[in-house]
């Protein structure tokens, strides 16, 4: 009896055991498949959301950059919205992972924050669900938002119009000065009229400036605007870079806006050669030159001996033939000065160079950044040393740039363009000096003492230096700097 019962029980268990593999498989599938399905759907949503978010970021940033395009505020807004839509589509292809209804709404806010405009992109897309349809969910809506902004710039464009720019450049049929006029005017086209504030400094021995204005493309009461003034530049005189930088900085200080991005863009074709200074205390004992103050531009000449054969040297008044301006620093002198009749006789009037220029920049301090140029300390006691005068002019320019970069409130950034090979028998600009003045991060990778200088000014605003090996590449150099500034403004 017991045996029979036992057999029956075993028989029943055997019968049950026969289908257990199917049951186990089904049970496992019942757990596994929904998990796979959930993973697939969630993974898809995650992927779509990531792509949508990237597209919204790109749309906002490109919209912010496009705020610089257009002649007025409404055109700039329209361009920003168009660019944002274009970049959204470019990054989120139609039907990406079978999505539908992908769209972006672009809003431009140009009033809430002073000197700052924002572009906000709200993007949405419908992503299909595959396994979650069992819960009657056919689609999932994904929404993302991204914002970017563009700061208005307060920029002084500083252009060298020294005499060396006048040489006709071989193969181009025109002077470097003419090329600069065209390329600098094109450079202005990268900025936003009505929002950005742009002024102009044009310099040779003396300096002309046009105060910064947001209406930089609209003629003022005198019929002047920045592009037309650039078009009227005539090139002559020496290269008083420090004085030009001083006036650019002076205008930035006058506007005194810490909400704008303050920028100085310096284009030069040579080494600084001029020092604007008070010379009264440096008169030779028996000079009848005067009266005080004896203010003028001391222009040096030769560096490296044969680089500038026949270099001139003298104390002079530079007149502005085309851009006449009350802003010029004019020499005060009288007919008793020997140099008034002949600049070369300056040593009969002046016994030494001053220790600082008219803008409190030391004429000493900076030596031999670039070994190739072999700079030495300026010998202030020998006014007949044209090369030493150039060293002093380099020093005041570098010190002026350092003073500007050291402003921790306005934090001006300096950008520099060096035009070599302008066709003139002249000093070419020293790329390393311009790199140092701009505080270009590439200074760190240059030959010694480049990295040392970089470390000294690493906490100051970093600009960029663009080299134009000849006048035909000046357009690209201006363009490179415009691009750098555009990237900086839109973040």
């Amino acid at each position: 009896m017991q045996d029979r019962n036992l057999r029956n029980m075993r028989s029943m268990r055997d019968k049950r055991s026969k289908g257990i593999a199917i049951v186990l498989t089904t049970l496992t599938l019942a757990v596994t498949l929904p998990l796979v399905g959930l993973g697939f759907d969630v993974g898809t949503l995650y992927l779509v959301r990531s792509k949508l978010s990237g597209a919204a970021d790109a749309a906002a940033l490109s919209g912010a950059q496009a705020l610089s395009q257009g002649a007025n505020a409404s055109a700039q807004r329209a361009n920003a919205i168009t660019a944002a839509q274009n970049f959204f589509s470019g990054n989120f292809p139609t039907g990406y992972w079978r999505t539908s209804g992908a769209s972006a709404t672009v809003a431009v806010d140009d009033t809430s924050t002073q000197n700052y405009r924002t572009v906000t992109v709200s993007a949405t897309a419908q992503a299909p669900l595959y396994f979650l349809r069992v819960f009657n969910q056919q689609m999932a809506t994904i929404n993302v938002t991204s914002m970017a902004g563009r700061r208005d710039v307060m920029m002084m464009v500083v252009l060298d119009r020294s005499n060396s720019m006048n040489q006709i450049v071989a193969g181009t049929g025109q002077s470097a000065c003419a090329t600069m006029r065209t390329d600098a005017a094109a450079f202005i086209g990268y900025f936003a009229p009505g929002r950005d504030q742009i002024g102009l400094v044009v310099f040779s021995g003396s300096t002309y400036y046009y105060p910064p204005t947001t209406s930089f493309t609209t003629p003022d009461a005198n019929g002047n605007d920045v592009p037309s003034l650039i078009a009227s530049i005539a090139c002559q005189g020496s290269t008083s870079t420090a004085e030009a930088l001083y006036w650019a900085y002076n205008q930035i200080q006058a506007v005194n806006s810490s909400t704008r991005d303050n920028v100085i863009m310096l284009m030069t074709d040579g080494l600084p050669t001029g020092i604007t200074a008070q010379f009264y205390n440096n008169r030779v004992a028996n000079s009848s030159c005067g009266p005080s103050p004896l203010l003028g531009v001391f222009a040096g000449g030769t560096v490296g001996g044969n680089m500038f054969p026949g270099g001139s040297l003298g104390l002079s008044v530079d007149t502005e033939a085309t851009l006449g301006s009350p802003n010029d620093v004019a020499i005060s002198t009288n007919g008793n000065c020997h140099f008034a009749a002949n600049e070369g006789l300056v040593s009969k009037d002046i016994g030494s160079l001053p220790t600082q220029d008219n803008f409190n920049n030391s004429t000493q301090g900076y030596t031999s950044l670039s070994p190739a140029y072999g700079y030495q300390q300026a010998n202030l006691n020998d006014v007949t040393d044209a090369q030493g005068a150039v060293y002093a002019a380099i020093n005041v320019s570098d010190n002026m740039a350092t003073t500007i970069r050291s402003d921790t409130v306005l934090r001006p950034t300096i950008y520099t363009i060096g035009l070599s090979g302008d066709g003139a028998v002249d000093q070419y600009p020293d790329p390393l000096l311009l790199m140092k003045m701009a505080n270009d991060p590439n200074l760190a990778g240059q030959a010694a003492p480049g990295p040392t200088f970089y470390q000294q000014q690493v906490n100051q605003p970093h600009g960029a230096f663009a080299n134009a090996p000849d006048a035909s590449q000046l357009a690209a150099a201006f363009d490179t700097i415009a691009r750098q500034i555009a990237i900086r403004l839109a973040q």
Partner: protein
Amino acid sequence: MSRNRNEKGNAYIEFVLVASFFFVPLILGMITVGIAVARNFQVNQLTRDVGHMMANGVDFSQQTNQNLVVNDLANGLSIQANSGNVTGSSSGNGVLVLSVFESLTSSCNCVNANHVVVVTRIVIGNNTLYTSPFGSPASINPTSGAVANYTTDTGARADNVSSVVTIGSNGLAFMSEGDFAFTDLGVVGFITNLGAFNRAVF
């Protein structure tokens, strides 16, 4: 008695057999595809982040910035770091091609006025995997990635960028293209040639 004892484990053996031929390939396939999807996602994120950083002014010609990409953002993707250049090498399983485009206007006063040109090109990783179809400039600075003479070199023109995005006058576009081969992934005979490509443009 003995037959019953033998049949006792049959169900489990059947299940193991079913599992071997069904679940194991399924799970292996899921793991393989899962890793591939994860890497695909990483490539998307990588190209997007690098493009965004470029548009914010990060200079990827600097070796330190390249290393950040290769060692951190692209960790696990087997991309080979450059050795102090912007042209890449022929080793590794991935490549990133970074380009900056600009739409030059007529005021450029240059040969390439009214064209989109590539002004910077930086290649990180295996340059044999992928070549960008957008512009083929004659000369690129091997340390900065700056395209030489892009205002005059007709090879620098990249008007076909419009197939991806339309750039406004004087406007810029920062493109990051990533192509990666997952040579270590696959199920023999079933899943081969896994990889990922993504393009982000800012």
